[in-house]
């Protein structure tokens, strides 16, 4: 379970940052599976792609930690071809936007090869895409494109929220025989958490309940889970029970447990990392509306990015991103909480943040990034 603010309760457990968890997963997978290799622009770079590839070149050499030219389309196809031959490539893009140049390869060749071949071909491929945010990255370096990938049958799409999942799900993605788009929010690289040391791949088996509660079902993904958890914790103190799910896997979407929860609570809020419109929340709400219709007590709600590109200026980012106070407020609305409570909660959640700049994840961090 993610620890908000990185304050683990049990200090005997091992704490890593998300970035360290990724390094550890990659290291262990490469050690265990000679077919696993890493490739990408900057795979060998001295800063280790935000610290997520640090030490791998030294350990495994340039044949297995391959630096790529700026040729996203061709090297994605190359990875697919290698996967068809039984290798297990791990591609990394420092920004999800660079993968747009490889959409044809991903959507046609990676996603469909298994299907078209009637199950004969396999594409055990992982594409790590880093989703930027903050420090004025702006319109072409901080999109969150999970809904694009999630619309493609044949791809799997994973959105880890915490260090343990970054490790476990990355191992699970590497062991999976399908092409997996592994979406890493930059801020989950910084967040710390307990990470078990061993080789323990987690299957890509869908959402995890992070908190139990009877009043409202909340589904968040990736970094937004941390914001939602903060809101849920504060609400619990007020006696409002949030059944909080970390979505984890957006495709194939496994909603059984979430729908069962909605059937119980009658209330649903989704919190998307990317845009609200045409986002993951649309699919989840549509499914809930169709499949738990009779149990719904209130209109389901979605939170997510507004319907415009990401502006660079921090003044505009201020109203762009969803944070825990808004999540808390939306939940209050959903459960029909008293206005005083809503106001108080928003204030409380905001209070812990007033000294944090909006555009960086942690005050000790100095740009650029």
């Amino acid at each position, binding site marked *: 379970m993610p620890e908000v603010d990185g304050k683990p309760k049990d200090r005997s457990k091992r704490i890593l940052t998300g970035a360290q968890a990724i390094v550890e997963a990659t290291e262990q997978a490469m050690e265990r599976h000679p077919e696993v*290799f890493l490739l990408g622009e900057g795979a060998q770079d001295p800063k280790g792609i935000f610290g997520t590839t640090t030490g791998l070149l030294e350990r495994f050499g340039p*044949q297995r930690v*391959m630096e*790529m*030219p700026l*040729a996203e*389309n*061709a*090297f*994605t*196809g*190359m*990875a*697919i*071809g*290698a*996967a*068809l*031959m*039984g*290798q297990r*490539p791990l591609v990394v893009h420092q920004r999800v936007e660079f993968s747009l140049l490889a959409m*044809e*390869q991903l959507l*046609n*060749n990676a996603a469909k*090869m*298994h*299907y*078209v*071949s*009637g*199950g*004969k*071909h*396999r594409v*055990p491929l992982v594409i790590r895409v880093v989703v930027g945010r903050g420090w004025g990255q702006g319109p072409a370096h901080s999109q969150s494109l999970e809904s694009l990938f999630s619309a493609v*049958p*044949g791809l*799997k799409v994973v959105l880890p929220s915490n260090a343990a999942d970054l490790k476990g799900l990355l191992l699970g993605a590497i062991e999976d*025989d*399908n092409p997996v788009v592994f979406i890493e929010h930059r801020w989950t690289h910084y967040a710390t958490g307990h990470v078990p040391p061993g080789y323990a791949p987690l299957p890509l088996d869908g959402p995890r309940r992070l908190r139990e509660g009877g009043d409202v079902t909340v589904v968040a993904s990736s970094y937004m889970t941390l914001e939602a958890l903060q809101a849920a914790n504060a609400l619990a103190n007020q006696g409002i029970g949030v059944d909080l799910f970390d979505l984890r896997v957006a495709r*194939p979407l496994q909603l059984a447990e979430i729908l069962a929860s909605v059937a119980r609570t009658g209330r649903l809020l989704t919190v998307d990392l990317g845009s609200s419109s045409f986002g993951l929340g649309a699919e989840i709400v549509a499914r809930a509306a169709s499949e738990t219709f009779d149990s719904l007590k209130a209109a389901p709600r979605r939170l997510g990015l507004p319907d415009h590109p990401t502006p660079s200026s921090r003044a505009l980012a201020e109203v762009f991103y969803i944070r825990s106070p808004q999540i808390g407020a939306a939940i209050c609305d959903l459960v029909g909480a008293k206005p005083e409570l809503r106001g108080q909660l928003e204030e409380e959640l905001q209070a812990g943040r007033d000294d944090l700049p909006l555009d960086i994840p942690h005050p000790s961090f100095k740009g650029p990034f």
Partner: protein
Amino acid sequence: MKTDLISLEGSDLSTEDLLRLYRNLLRVRLIEEAIAARYSAQEMRCPVHLSVGQEAAAVGACDPLTREDRIVSTHRCHGHYLAKGGDLTRMIAEIHGRATGCCGGRGGSMHLFDDDAGVVASVPIVGSSVPLGLGIALAFQQQGLPHVAVAFFGDGAVEEGALHESANLAVVHQLPLVFFLENNLYSVYTPLQDRQPERPLARFASAHELPVEEADGNDVLAVRRATAVAVERARQGEGPTLVAVNTYRWREHCGPAYDDHLGYRPEGELAKWQAACPVARFEKALTEAGLLSKEHQESFAAACAAEIETAFRVALQAPFPRPESATDHVYA
């Protein structure tokens, strides 16, 4: 193009080798002609891109390959698939949308593959299979295997960014990959000169320090020779090569018919290329060298015809995939 006799000299091939090449040429031709002849029955309900006229490229390129070597192909994949040893019955069944097709009917004519024969994939997006070829070659390199990958593509693909990115990558990583370019002068209805500057097409390779072997694409021996050099280089760990050949598509871009009446190709161009027929020229050379008798030739043709007849009969009798099976194999 050349219409003269194909010279058998300088080839170190045995009579058996030469006859194998001839048989393969003839077989591809007859299969494609059979598809054309039967297409109007509307049992093959998928697009077909025939390679009639281009047989020597496919056959000459695949002849130096071992079974373990792999190829990737394009929308125009019948010839490559067959030349590499792909199963005819499964190909014809695939084009008929049958469960017994090489993709179980899921791909149709533009997605032919055959794992046993080393046809990894055919892909209908122009240029899209070339990067797959890189990956196959990379896997050979990583696995320490002495095998070679061949990526087939047309003159149109040279305009795609993917091809240039691939050439650069293959050279930088010295991948055991042969880029095999069949220049048939057209992309659908558009001639080369409307799409690319005038220059020898193979020159694009110099941008990437990619070595080049050129050959008359309607001379199966010349194609074989050029490819063999490239394959040997790749096998020895000396990296990729572009093999560039000129050839010509006789029939329409997609479909069974002749379409010269549309006027997109200069009058007489087709006739000239037909005079350079890769099958007839080689047949004549073998005949004049006394290696191929009329009876021999006729027995080859008859054997092919029988094989084709059977393949179509089997395909037409084969079951369609069960509708419910459409949802199988989305994920491994």
